[in-house]
């Protein structure tokens, strides 16, 4: 490698490079972007956007984010860093919504945010049984629809399936963790709560619809 050639390029890029703006706010609020980290899956952490919270039950509804904005399909939304104050652009994988416990996100810093109005609209739209399309107010351009044309069984297809499964696993309440056991079994704790059960079973259309097709190999790419 040639130092003389590389150094000026890197120097210029560093000058334009953002650093993540972190807030260690403990309170979970709608619209915050945080990492979700599950101690029973130490190799996996992902960024999520908080869409709704239940402070009494300490449950949050989160939607999965990733950094591959070039692969955002027309079911996803792109959140530019100018609008989120994060250090990077993010894709909101709007079909990937899960309920999770405060424990898994509250320790992680806030790295950006989406305006609470848009977060709320996204949440409400996804609650509808008919998988409604969110109608953002005209004066809000916080997010933009993706345009990547996904094709059956291409690499993006598999990546989404993988991310979907991983996301579900990360959001699972880690009832076997010692610190949580001390407070009582989490799953048992919520099993009797009709609200939680109904929310987890029917409120959201948490289905990776793109994964349900089993067409043949011949349609690859």
């Amino acid at each position, binding site marked *: 490698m040639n130092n003389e050639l*590389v150094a000026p390029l890197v120097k210029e890029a560093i000058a334009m490079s953002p650093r*993540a703006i972190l807030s260690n706010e403990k309170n979970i609020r709608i619209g915050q972007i945080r990492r979700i980290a599950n101690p029973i899956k130490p190799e996996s952490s*992902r960024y999520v956007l908080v869409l709704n919270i239940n402070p009494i039950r300490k449950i949050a509804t989160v939607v999965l984010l990733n950094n591959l904005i070039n692969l955002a399909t027309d079911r996803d939304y792109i959140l530019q860093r100018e609008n989120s104050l994060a250090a990077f652009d993010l894709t909101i994988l709007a079909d990937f919504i899960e309920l999770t416990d405060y424990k898994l996100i509250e320790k992680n810093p806030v790295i950006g945010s989406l305006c609470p109005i848009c977060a709320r609209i996204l949440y409400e739209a996804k609650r509808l049984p008919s998988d409604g399309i969110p109608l953002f107010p005209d004066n809000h351009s916080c997010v933009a629809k993706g345009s990547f044309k996904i094709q059956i069984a291409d690499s993006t297809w598999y990546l989404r399936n993988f991310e979907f499964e991983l996301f579900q696993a990360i959001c699972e309440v880690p009832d076997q963790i010692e610190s949580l056991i001390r407070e009582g079994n989490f799953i048992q704790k919520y099993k009797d709560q009709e609200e939680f059960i109904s929310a987890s079973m029917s409120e959201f259309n948490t289905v990776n619809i793109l994964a349900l097709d089993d067409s043949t190999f011949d349609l690859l790419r």
Partner: protein
Amino acid sequence: MTTSKIDDPFVPPYFQNLTVSELLEEAESSARVYPRWWSLVYFTLKKMTHGWPMNAFRLEEKRDHQNYWSSEALHDFTSEIVCNELLKNGQQEYILGLIQDAARNSVELGESDDLNLHMGLVVHFLQQQINKVLDHRRAPTLTGNLMSRLDPIFEKLGLSITSDTATLTLTDIQIEDQVQMVSDLLSLLPRFPNTGEERLSRLYETTDLENFAISLAPQAPNLSLPILRTGIERSLEGMCGSITALQRVYRTVPLEPHRENEEEIELDGTPDSLSRSYNDVGTQDDQDGRGEFSGVGTGEDKTYIYSATIYSKADMAKISGIILELSLREQKYLVMKADQETKWTQTQIAEAIGLASRKKVNDFQENLFSKLNVLLQSHQVAAESHDYIIAGVLISLGANTAIEMVRTNE
């Protein structure tokens, strides 16, 4: 924190001693990415692109003595990935955030306090960025060009073609029929000469494409964009491809009837590394009517004429009959298994033939071999000629395999 050797399949061998601690330390320093991040991207890119055609990424084919991309090309891409993606687009921050979480979780579980165990994740996320840049720089393809030319024609004719094959509720066989129908229709059109090198030059007259679209119209309810694209690709390239599959392009060469007056093709182009031979052609059924076909090798700039006039017409009928019964996926698998230049891993094979995981490859192979046995029996191939016929299948599929065909019909 230890800096012991990292044993992780994700990590390129060049970086077995580079640690996440060092990367973190550098990211927090004023240098941010140099020299460790830069080198990690450079060598990861080098490893990923080994064997990929450079011209598919608008680069001149120029390689080093180990067949890796030239250092100029690698530097060019590394510069874009590091400066634009890692720094300007903040991807270094994204990666670091996730890695730090992974490390903290490890500590909470008491499994390890060694951040370096997560080096594989760093490389994994870097590979995503590398893929993004490579994909962006990928040269247009003949199929892509044609699709973009067909779009306005369909619009003009009011043809609406769904983007989702799943909504058509077609069986696999019906989908295959539709793909073949598209391919056949396109193959009927007069075509300008183009080897694929001139990727932006047109292949068909617009009026011909309009006729093509009109002839597709009755079938529009049973067509989807993926079916259309696959059919076009099959007509143009013979096989669909992905960024991974760019390593090799397989071309299906149809068997052609023997022309009696044609001069015999010499075997000068036969590969040197010959390891097997088939002399026992006397067992074949039809010794009088000889057939001919040639296999096009899969190398970038070489064409092998594998064989001429060794298979009888009856044998060729059996070979083509067997090939017709094989799906594209099965054909591709056979070609990969026969490839004597590249050792394909189970994972690569699974990806290339569209299986969900490498664990399914063995089942797939078992089913395929059973199917081949049934096909050989149904075509009444004598047991001692099984290898001979299968070799013909492989050659006609364009497999890059070192099989010597000895002419005995002198």
